[in-house]
């Protein structure tokens, strides 16, 4: 068990999501930074889809009620265990009674806490993710609150973790060749023109050339962007149609909305572009007020990035196991 000692609003249990039910109006949910979840779970020896805690409002703290392997990923801040500073993206062993504390990260939006054995949460429609709008999944369909106690699954690899912990080179560093760093604080997000891009004519070009800011009216459902409004050349009425995370819609006000993890399942606004799936985690880590620029991408580039990420994830999974086994053999 773990006990939540302190939590801000909207911190939830998430995994990699609940695909396959949009046709009945159920959004996929899942972590806003799925790459951090996959790597965190690999570090602690879990299946990459095991349930974790997504922390997006800080401070957050929990107490371990038994000896537990854990890792904090996604964040650029330093977690603390009983007051001692740890490094992020590193698996550690917590002893019974120890307290893990996460403070506001310096730049990024979200942190993920993985525990060996995963959070023992009932699976609802193929996922342990919390659907806040549906009020189901995760921690009884609601955000975590002080006093909540969550069961932890059996950790079959607990004896494998080296005493000093085991860390990973985080994606932003290991994959810097495929994920360009922000330029002057402006995050580049790759996207592909979508179905109604042609309706925007010159304003379509303005969409790609201007710098957008993430508005305060943003959440796990969608990021609303502030900037010079863009409008279509003609007003059209569209029937509501399916949308997925990454789709960028333009409502009548002209300021785009990017659908995120709790994306609506359908909508009628024209779609100007779609963020490539491999860049969604970077958007998920961008905070309100952050500036971003959309970079026109191609299917070939999106596929190349996807393959680079897959190689990295696979290398972490295989090498972490190999290092643990080698150290165990020499212990």
């Amino acid at each position, binding site marked *: 068990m773990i006990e939540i000692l302190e939590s801000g609003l909207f911190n939830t249990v998430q995994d990699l999501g609940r695909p396959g039910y949009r046709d009945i109006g159920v959004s996929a949910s899942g972590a806003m930074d799925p790459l951090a979840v996959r790597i965190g779970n690999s570090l602690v020896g879990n299946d990459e889809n095991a349930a974790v805690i997504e922390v997006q409002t800080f401070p957050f703290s929990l107490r371990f009620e038994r000896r537990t392997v854990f890792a904090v990923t996604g964040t650029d801040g330093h977690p603390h265990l009983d007051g*001692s500073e740890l*490094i992020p993206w*590193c698996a550690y062993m917590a002893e019974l009674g120890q307290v893990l504390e996460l403070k506001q990260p310096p730049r990024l939006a979200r942190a993920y806490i993985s525990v060996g054995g995963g959070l023992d949460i009932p699976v609802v429609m193929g996922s342990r993710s919390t659907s806040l709008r549906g009020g189901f999944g995760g921690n009884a369909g609601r955000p975590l609150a002080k006093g909540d106690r969550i069961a932890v699954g059996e950790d079959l690899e607990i004896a494998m973790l*080296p005493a*000093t*912990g*085991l*860390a*990973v*080179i*985080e994606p*932003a*560093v*290991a994959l810097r060749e495929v994920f360009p760093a922000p330029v002057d604080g402006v995050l580049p997000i790759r996207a592909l023109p979508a179905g109604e891009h042609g309706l925007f004519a010159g304003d379509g070009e303005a969409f790609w050339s201007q710098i957008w800011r993430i508005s305060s009216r943003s959440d796990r459902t969608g990021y609303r962007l502030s900037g010079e409004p863009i409008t279509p050349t003609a007003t059209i009425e569209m029937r509501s149609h399916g949308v997925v995370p990454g789709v960028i819609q333009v409502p009548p006000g002209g300021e785009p909305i990017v659908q995120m993890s709790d994306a609506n399942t359908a909508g009628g606004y024209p779609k100007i572009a779609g963020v490539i799936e491999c860049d969604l985690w970077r958007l998920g880590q961008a905070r309100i007020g952050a500036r971003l620029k959309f970079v026109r991408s191609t299917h070939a580039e999106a596929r190349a990035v996807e393959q680079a990420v897959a190689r*990295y994830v696979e*290398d*972490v999974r295989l*090498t*972490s196991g*190999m*290092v643990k086994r*080698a*150290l165990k053999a*020499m212990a």
Partner: protein
Amino acid sequence: MSAIDFGDPATIAFLTDALTAAGVEGLEISRPDGQIRIVISGEGAARISVPAATPRASDSAAVVVKAPLAGHFCAEHPGTAVAPQTLPRSISDADVLGFIRVGHMLLPLRAGHSGVLTRLLAEPDTLVGFGDPLFEIELPS
């Protein structure tokens, strides 16, 4: 890859156990600075000839942190801006002095002793072997 320190009893014990487990009768290694021969007796107990390695200049108040695994030695976390370590500097036993990097994995190297970090014994980003000396820590007297 740098050489293993055969003057370390723990290294000899590890090699002996590994030879026994593998059913190998013995091992002999010669280097310019000395040689070591480990012979596993028929009863399963090892007979070890004392290595004739050149004794290292040692300070009884200093300890050496050695590589627990083969890999690339990182004096800093690869994600941090490179800043040269100022030496000597005071450290506590829980401090992370560096990492062994294997692929994208990083094995933190804890000091294990409080004292003064006096020397880096391996070049950053070089490949090191199991048991290679990495840091020297002067213990408080």
